[in-house]
């Protein structure tokens, strides 16, 4: 496995109180590919994802040992500037959470806090990222209406545009289609395939078919232990471990 990928973990362990949730996780996420983290619910998929941008810290009673390396830096080093780290990663959560402001303000929020003040430049950014998220045509006439007035599927694309506007290198998806209708899910999946040209994408999914459709690389996690990781075809067609085989065949749910 390559050593110079964007995201790597070394002996990552995570505890909620006395509960050992992630056990000796050593993985490397390949750049500019779609990596799917699969496994049954409650096995630590989302926890692992939230370790990558340190969102996990806001949970009570969390203890982390080991390293998560992003571009070679251990992000749990106290010297690390967490806002700079998070700027490198866009997050799509299970259910979209637009910010309590207008459609325009949602996309402009990130660039603004990172120092862009010029109105004309912001207009261009908003238009360009709404286009990238395939939302521009639907909202161009109502940019100043509240973001919550959009449908859930549109909100999720807005959240994607909002995340992309920060110009990250990595996109994290935490079951980003689980609250969406089939058409909206398809939109997001198609977007991901388009975006992997430029971005490294890591997504948690509990839908095996989704992993089959879009993932290049698959990490199978069971009860906090990485059972198997490899290219999608390898894991899906020729899994080595018994647990992976059972999961793929739908025995473990």
């Amino acid at each position, binding site marked *: 496995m390559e050593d110079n990928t964007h995201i790597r973990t070394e002996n990552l362990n995570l505890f909620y109180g006395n509960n050992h949730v992630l056990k000796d996780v050593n993985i490397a996420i390949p750049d500019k590919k779609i990596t799917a983290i699969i496994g049954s619910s409650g096995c630590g998929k989302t926890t692992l994802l939230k370790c990558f941008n340190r969102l996990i810290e806001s949970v009570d009673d969390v203890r982390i040992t080991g390293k998560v390396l992003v571009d070679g830096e251990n992000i749990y080093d106290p010297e690390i500037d967490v806002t700079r780290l998070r700027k490198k990663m*866009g997050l799509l*959560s299970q259910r979209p959470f637009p910010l309590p402001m207008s459609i325009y303000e949602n996309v402009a929020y990130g660039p603004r806090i990172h120092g862009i003040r010029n109105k004309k430049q912001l207009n261009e950014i908003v238009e360009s990222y709404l286009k990238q998220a395939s939302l521009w045509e639907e909202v161009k006439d109502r940019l100043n209406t*509240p973001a919550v007035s959009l449908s859930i599927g549109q909100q999720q694309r807005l959240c994607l545009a909002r995340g992309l506007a920060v110009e990250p290198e990595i996109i994290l998806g935490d079951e980003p289609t689980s609250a969406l209708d089939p058409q909206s899910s398809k939109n997001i999946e198609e977007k991901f395939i388009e975006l992997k040209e430029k971005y490294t994408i890591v997504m948690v999914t509990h839908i095996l078919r989704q992993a089959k459709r879009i993932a290049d690389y698959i990490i199978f996690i069971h009860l906090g232990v990485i059972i198997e990781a490899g290219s999608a075809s390898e894991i899906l067609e020729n899994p080595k471990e018994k647990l992976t085989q059972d999961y793929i065949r739908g025995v473990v749910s």
Partner: protein
Amino acid sequence: MGIRRRKYEEIFFKKLALLSSIFLVVILLVIVISIIIKAIPALSIEMISQTPKGGFYLGGGGGILNAIVGSLYLAFGATLLAFLLGFPVVIYMNIYANPNSRFVNLLRLVLDILWGIPSIVYGVFGFVIMIFLGIKASLLGGILIVALFILPVIIRSIDELILMIPRGLTDAAYSLGSTKFETAFKVVIRQVSSGIVTALLIAFGRAIGDAAAVLFTTGYTDNIPTSLSQPTATLPLAIFFQLGSPIEAVQQRAYASAFVLTVIILLISVITRVSARKYKKFKV
């Protein structure tokens, strides 16, 4: 359990709930109407546009403009001060500290106890402090004590609002690279802005309606205060003094004052609610 019994249970409770609600509205109407009826003889433009003239408390001319202006100064000052002091505390409790930590929960308990302390205790406390510092009863003294008295109201009501914000929203702000400051002042504050208006309104209502906290700390005067160090009249005390008079015309003025106080609270309530609606539509 029989289907009949469940049906009667349902009907009984529905009627009970409706009856209680009607009862509440009736009580409100009785209060307002009785104030209006008793206030009518004394209500005049003079009443709200002039300060007391000589012999006012014996039935002489003049009005209660001193108390109206004094109460507005006091309530606005105290609400503003309490918000400026309280908002950073709320942000600390929920954004900078862990909102579920033992310390923050202890803080909540302390604030809830402070909330429950009667205002006269604050008044006495303020009085003792002012004697100790050699300060006379003044608008400033009143603002400080009333601010202290409504501080727990403001902090805890905004705190409860922020506790209800979904984790995903703050996570979204953080994952865009927001600092805690930006998350607090650009995202959280917008999400709860309509609720903050309500919290301020409740606090303002307590501030303008309270007599006990201002009794010793603010004093009373027939003049409109021109500086923070002057004693200041307030509507609740104006009502109290006028109602204590044996002269009927003065007693009627007490009701007129109560009417003015009610109208002020009503007006401020309507104005703030209308202006809060603007923000509410952005709420996630």
